């Protein structure tokens, strides 16, 4: 085993340090503030890619199938998440419709597609042209994807709606619940540091001079 060390700057405290290679399943932590510098997740890129492909299928089902069916005095209502947001939009609050729809449907959708592009390109050494800018974009979007919060929102709504209507949970609900788990697993098994290292190796980007 070669003890290859890399020079690393802590994101949180700016401590400059040499970090030895980390074994799979372990973390490298900052010598000063103890924050995690990066991980070396078991399963490399295959694992997040597998979770991601499953997420893509589940994303489609979760957004096409109705999340629940309400019966209010004999009237049956069923909608998807986007359908609910669209009604919100028609009601005259487009900005609120956007606040609901963007973090629950659109941004997660973009993140999933972008990650697929990046992971597929790196895993199969496709050297796709936009891999780097898309990876940068994904990093910027990540904090704005809020499917997990939305999942809790669906649960709270169900409890609140039970008092008003007959609620029957739909396929979309189960698919969304699975999607949240699959998406969280994708993110948990992914390490951006590893992706950037792989990209550097494959594309041979100009590195800065290492003296210093």
């Amino acid at each position: 085993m070669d003890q290859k060390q890399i020079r690393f700057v802590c994101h949180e405290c700016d401590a400059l340090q040499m970090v030895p290679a980390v074994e799979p399943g372990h973390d490298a932590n900052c010598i000063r503030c103890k924050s995690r510098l990066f991980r070396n997740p078991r399963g490399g890129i295959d694992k997040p890619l597998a979770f991601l492909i499953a997420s893509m299928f589940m994303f489609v089902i979760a957004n096409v199938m109705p999340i629940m069916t309400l019966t209010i005095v004999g009237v049956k209502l069923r909608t998807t998440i986007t359908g609910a947001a669209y009604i919100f939009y028609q009601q005259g609050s487009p900005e609120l419709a956007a606040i609901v729809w963007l973090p629950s449907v659109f941004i997660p959708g973009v993140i999933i597609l972008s990650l697929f592009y990046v992971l597929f390109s790196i895993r199969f050494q496709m050297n796709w042209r936009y891999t780097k800018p898309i990876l940068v974009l994904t990093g910027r979007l990540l904090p704005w994807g809020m499917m997990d919060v939305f999942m809790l929102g669906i649960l709270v709504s169900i409890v609140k709606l039970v008092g008003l209507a007959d609620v029957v949970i739909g396929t979309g609900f189960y698919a969304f619940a699975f999607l949240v788990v699959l998406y969280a697993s994708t993110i948990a098994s992914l390490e951006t540091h590893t992706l950037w290292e792989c990209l550097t190796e494959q594309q041979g980007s100009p590195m800065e001079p290492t003296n210093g």
Partner: protein
Amino acid sequence: MASNVVSAMSRGIAGCHTCGLAVQMPDNTEVECPRCGAELHYRKHDSINRAWAFLIAAFIMYIPANTEPMMRTTSLGNTSADTIMGGVIYFLSHGDWPLALVIFAASVMLPLLKMIAIAYILILTQRASSERRIERTNLYKIAEILGKWSMLDIFVVGLMAGLVQLGALTTIAPGPACIAFAGVVILTMFAEMAFDPKLIWDKME
């Protein structure tokens, strides 16, 4: 051991905020990261002022977010308006205390605690305090992770309004607090993103 640690800035090295690469900085300041193309800088630009601006705006929005109604329910001609606390009290009075607790924690406590946490971090950083640096760094990271959960009530209103609207007998409409609440969440996220946690550790050497 920790006293021997040097900051990357003191050695003329910047860690890229986007991809994490450690880059030896040339003398002229405006450079792009050779790996990801993002702009490189030692510290986020005007970090403390920008964080305060977002934070103060969030504090102001927090008031209407709690006093104005979140949701208007019209059923058979009767309209009732619910504030966040109104919803919490409703669930409490129906014995549904776990749900009341979830809503109270996510909508009332969490945004307030996050704003106080950021203000505390900002004040100590401005004073160049050397106290509890690790704890402040951890506090910042916790605030970063938990902030988004405050969106809960907005999602609930959005879903309910969207789902129930089609039924003519009962309608649910969003109240003015919705937009204020979303403002609180988004502005605190901006404040947290504007702040550079590296500033906590500066002025040490």
